């Protein structure tokens, strides 16, 4: 059980995300079996591992889309598992991008980006629109503001989805296999956008199958299998000299 404590004010020298012995079960199926790690501000963390190992579940626990069974998750010292959690406070700090983009199909690209700041944060429309246009430019989609998601390519939709998350001005971005549904040419555009974000100092947690990208961009790589972190370390160590046989086997299959 999480002990309800007054959150200490968070300072940037403390971990921005901290997981302590997180367990998650769906019924009888234990998907996370005691996961602990921490992410520093500005760090880029990649999570790799075979499908079904609990990567999506892990990342969803961090913004409380999935409630944990036991353990502690702190985001800027906010206890995510606290039943009295202020979800709005948490979710404006944590942006999330999904594999299937999940844009709102009845709204244009620009409206998709503007919706949450306007209706959730009740910010001024003019200011939000200005920011949304700037974000569309940032993801290199100027000119597509008034296009509906159905008329955009997968890569374009995914970049709108990134802009939509950024519009809430999060401190952390979570990416769950955001290029897995894209065709190879458009993967590059999306990875380019993520790289830019990372270089600007955004704290990023990525679940990815793009091993070269992970190796290139990550400060730290976690290899998960069957609900546990098997091995972690700097990308060069993980990719060049994995110690655990499971990591070795996985990498030999995907590289």
């Amino acid at each position, binding site marked *: 059980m999480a002990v309800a404590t007054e959150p200490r004010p968070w300072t940037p020298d403390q971990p921005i995300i901290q997981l302590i012995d997180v367990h998650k079960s769906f019924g009888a199926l234990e998907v996370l079996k005691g996961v602990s790690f921490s992410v520093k501000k500005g760090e880029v963390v990649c999570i790799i591992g075979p499908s079904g190992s609990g990567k999506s579940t892990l990342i969803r626990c961090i913004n409380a*889309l999935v409630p944990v069974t036991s353990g502690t998750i702190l985001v800027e010292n906010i206890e995510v598992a606290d039943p009295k959690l202020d979800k709005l406070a948490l*979710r404006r700090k944590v*942006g999330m991008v999904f594999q299937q983009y999940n844009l709102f199909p009845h709204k244009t690209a620009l409206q998709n980006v503007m*919706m949450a700041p306007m209706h959730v944060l009740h910010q001024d429309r003019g200011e939000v629109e200005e920011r949304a246009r700037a974000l569309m430019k940032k993801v290199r989609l100027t000119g597509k503001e008034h296009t509906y998601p*159905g008329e955009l390519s997968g890569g374009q939709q995914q970049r709108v989805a990134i802009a939509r998350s950024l519009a809430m001005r999060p401190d952390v971005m979570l990416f769950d296999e955001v290029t897995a549904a894209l065709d190879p040419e458009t993967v590059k555009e999306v990875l380019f956008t993520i790289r830019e974000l990372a270089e600007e100092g955004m704290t990023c947690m990525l679940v990815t199958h793009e091993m070269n990208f992970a190796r290139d961009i990550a400060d730290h790589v976690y290899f998960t299998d069957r609900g546990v972190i098997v091995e972690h370390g700097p990308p060069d160590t993980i990719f060049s000299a994995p110690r655990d046989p499971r990591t070795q086997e996985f990498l030999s299959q995907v590289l």
Partner: protein
Amino acid sequence: MSPKNTPARADAPLPVLLPFRIEPTRLGTPRLAPVHALLFGAGLALLAGTAWAQAVDTRLSPLDVIIKWAPLLLSGFAFNILISMIAMAIGTGAGLGVGLGMLSHNPVLARVCWALTQFFRNAPWLVLLFFVMFLVPFQITVFGVRIPLPDWVKATVGFSLPVMANVAEIVRGAVRSVPSTQWEAAESLAFTPRQTMWRIILPQCVKRMLPPWMNLYSLVTMATVQASIVGVSEMLTLTAQVHTAEGGRPELFAPLYGFAMFCFFLYCYPIDRFTARLERRFHIR
């Protein structure tokens, strides 16, 4: 038709019938257009006229009877439309509430709304109409003010009950058909469930709900003639009265009721076509 196109088969019709076989047209299955409706109406009038011409009488011809009474009959028809629109408005509002209630996380509310929907969806409309006619008083008193409830108001309420149940089912189905990933995306952007429903889910559902909703409207319009059974002066009631006023002549029966049918057809057919077009368009997207 050349023999080349019709190889002789054991089950082929007698050759003598072949010339009468209708070639499939370019359009495929014959489609009805408003012009057909006009032809239908004209045919009806002609039929009435010729039937009359055979009888030797100085009384008004059926066509003249229709023309004479058309203003009254059409005012009755307008009443049918009014009842259908009000019933639809009430039923849609209530149905939206009941439909969302069925989707509520509150199990009691969800069960109650589900039961309401099932009950009113599976009761004959006429029986519901009778119930409302007999259970609702002819006037109600609100804050000392007596509000009379004429029969047509009660009938409208009676029709709005099945509308409510059907709309509730349309809403429930449409909301359920939106992928759960839309809810997740909204949740991750800090939308509350209520905001998600009204700003993200329901607007997406409008497209899916419109064709069945318009279809329901057509059905309600046609059902409003049932109000004649409980004495509302709508078109069917007036048609019967006109028939009596004209001496109940048997040869007037078909023209008068044909006129009523024609009015409903003219009104409902375009709605039906439009619905089909919407359906096709939404299907392609």
